[in-house]
């Protein structure tokens, strides 16, 4: 309904806010995907016979996610304190290139 009331505000979207939102979305998406990949690799074996998770798998996933979020929080605080930026992680470009070239 707001598109009928304020035609003017529809055109102007704050660019910086949009960028912030995109960065936050990327960060959370990558965190969630890494949690899924890592914890399922560590906790859920490839052999199973039923569709429900066992007690061991449930407990392992709980602990894995909790540890991951703790580590994520600590590293985020550290990165914020030392003002980590992309230029500090320039060596990752070489690793990525090597990984993608199939070595």
């Amino acid at each position, binding site marked *: 309904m707001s598109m009928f009331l304020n035609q003017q505000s529809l055109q102007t979207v704050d660019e910086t806010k949009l960028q912030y939102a995109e960065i936050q979305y990327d960060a959370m998406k990558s965190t969630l995907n890494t949690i899924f990949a890592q914890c399922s690799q560590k*906790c859920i074996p490839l052999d199973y*016979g039923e569709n429900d998770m*066992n*007690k*061991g*798998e449930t407990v*392992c996933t709980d602990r894995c996610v909790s540890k991951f979020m703790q580590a994520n929080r600590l590293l985020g605080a550290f990165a914020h304190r030392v003002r980590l930026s992309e230029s500090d992680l320039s060596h990752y470009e070489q690793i990525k290139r090597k990984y993608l070239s199939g070595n």
Partner: protein
Amino acid sequence: MQNPFLPPPKKSLQEMTQEEQAEQGAKQIMDVISSCPGKAIMSGVSGYVLGGFFGIFMASMAYDTPVGTGLQSNPLSKMQDLPLKQQMKIQFKDMLARTYSSAKNFGYIGMIFAGVECGVESFRAKNDIYNGTIAGCITGGGLAIKSGPQAALFGCAGFAAFSSAIDVYMRSENGRPPTNDYDM
């Protein structure tokens, strides 16, 4: 920005609709049943019932053990000389005692095994056959510990081997899922 990984805030019981209340209740029941004490109690109760049936069956098969008459007045009278109702009462008491002892044993076995296995699995955070082995050893050893250390050792080994065999059989069907549904 709020953490999107956290679950949504809980609603109190009155705010939920009927469906959601039923879902919440079912979820609570499932949580209790799948917890370690719940598993131990359920296994103990089912072991008790199974032991009761087993005891009744075994008591009905054991016709060769002599049962005392229990009569103080006539110690020389045999069982067959008593009236039918008395015979039935004595046999029934004996059968009840056997059933109760068998049920108690099986109930203990079930409760201890399920409880220890669930606890060991929660501690190790892994699901493999060694949980059953450890739980079997503790169950067998714990039940036989009154008869001395050697009996406890044999009980541990026997129960652990039995539990491992059953687990290996149950897991023989597990495996990786097929990559697609077409070429099996």
